[in-house]
């Protein structure tokens, strides 16, 4: 039997009409934008299943663009997101498609930045505004964005993970969950590491400086605050 917080029952505070098709979509896009980083100039949203069929009626399109613009799922400006994106010169395209054997509410983001770099992120909205990300640039991952998350791209060599965990230990940050994905021994690996508390600036700086790490992203959870 699951345990519930009072605010699982009376909450979330959100922009309607649907926790999965609107709030969850905004959350997915906000995380995708954080994974991409940088100045985003163009986004293709490949919509699957129920997202593909009902995205206009549920405002899923507006919610997705709002997330790309870093809005929270309860931001009342969410419904004006497409207009705001246009004003900022961000191109958005919605493409209903079939992404295969995935959750009915799934979207694949193809995000282009001003330096021409492209990031691909896939994730699903699984109900009640909850989400998970399952693919980044063709690499399988799995995280929910409910906790502070560190995403690394690093060389698969002995000691890299230990370097990261000892930096977190020095800063008294507890690791809640950790997964490593790699194409093969010694090649590039991806790690999704979730922590119990916010990753400090200090720890971020030190992790960035580990020489085997090619790329690291820090994704903060989207937590409802006092409005």
């Amino acid at each position, binding site marked *: *039997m*699951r*345990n*519930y*917080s*009072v*605010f*699982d*029952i*009376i*909450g*979330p*505070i*959100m*922009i*309607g*009409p*649907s*926790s999965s098709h*609107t*709030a969850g979509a905004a959350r997915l896009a906000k995380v995708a934008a954080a994974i991409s980083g940088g100045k985003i100039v163009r986004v293709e949203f490949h919509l699957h299943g*129920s997202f593909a*069929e*009902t995205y*206009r*009626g*549920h*405002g899923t399109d*507006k919610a997705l663009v709002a997330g790309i613009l870093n809005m929270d799922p*309860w931001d*009342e400006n*969410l*419904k004006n997101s497409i207009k705001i994106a246009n004003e900022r010169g961000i191109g958005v395209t919605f493409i209903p498609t079939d992404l295969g054997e995935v959750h009915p509410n799934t979207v694949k983001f193809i995000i282009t930045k001003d330096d021409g770099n492209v990031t691909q992120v896939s994730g699903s909205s699984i*109900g*009640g*505004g909850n989400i998970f990300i399952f693919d980044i640039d063709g690499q399988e991952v799995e995280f929910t964005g409910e906790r502070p998350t560190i995403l690394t791209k690093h060389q698969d060599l002995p000691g890299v993970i230990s370097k990261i965990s000892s930096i977190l230990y020095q800063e008294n940050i507890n690791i809640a969950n950790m997964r490593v994905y790699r194409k093969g021994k010694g090649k590039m690996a991806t790690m999704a590491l979730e922590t119990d508390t916010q990753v400090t600036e200090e720890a971020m700086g030190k992790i960035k400086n580990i020489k085997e790490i090619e790329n690291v992203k820090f994704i903060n959870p989207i937590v409802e605050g*006092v*409005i």
Partner: protein
Amino acid sequence: MFVSTGKELLEICKEKNIPIWEYTIREEIEAVEVPREKVIERMKSTLHVMMNSSTYAQDNIVKSVSGLIGGDAYKIRKYAESGKTLTGEFMNKAMARAISSSEVNAAMGRIVACPTAGSCGILPAVIISAGEKLNSSEDQLIQGLFTAAGVGILIAKNATLAGAEGGCQAECGSAAAMASAAVVEMMGGTPEQALTAAAIVIKNILGLVCDPVAGLVEVPCAKRNIAGTVSALTTADLVMSGVYSKIPFDEVVWAMYKVGRQMPAELRETSQGGIAITPTALKLKKEIFKE
């Protein structure tokens, strides 16, 4: 950890001589390890969102994104004040509040899912209307929300709050049950009477299917928020008069869960049955999603 059954909840409330809302606050403090003031503060900001959503569409004509619904809260509010109503200004204002939140939701405004977005009109309408009538303070409204949350936790643990799993009885039915229990405690009723109200509300809505037209949270959802609101308010009076439920709360929740499991998928939020496949609904769907 929050108790698992209504029976245990009543025992613990009796033993400690506290209402459901107080027990619910204490459990939340312990579970999330935050101070009491923080928990109350968060519920207060939740209440403020509810106040806005239940008022906005009464003062402004709000249209949904699809154009399917809108403007009813405004209409009902005007009528409520006309002096010509059958059920009185109190009930008509409650109905206007209920559909206001539903219209705000469908128009991409800010609401509180309580327990879901589709049933977001009921709890605010019931708590705020009862509070107005009873001259309740803001603290008392917040307490009512904790009573509702406690009842909702029990339903979530033993059944479901999702239309896709249990039909509309699980969404609007649960919302109305939570709301009715809250009003009973606001009126000075006992925890036992609060759960009695929740049980009666669920019994009266048992079997209600989830059949949204065009898959949108609009028709028939918005008006079911009105029905849930009226049921929650009248049941609170029923229980305060001394009427009891022959079947206890826990068993009613169990029955609701079983009925949900017995419902075919067509009647659980897939829009493949019920109102959603009537000729008019299919015609509306075509118009909304035209290329």
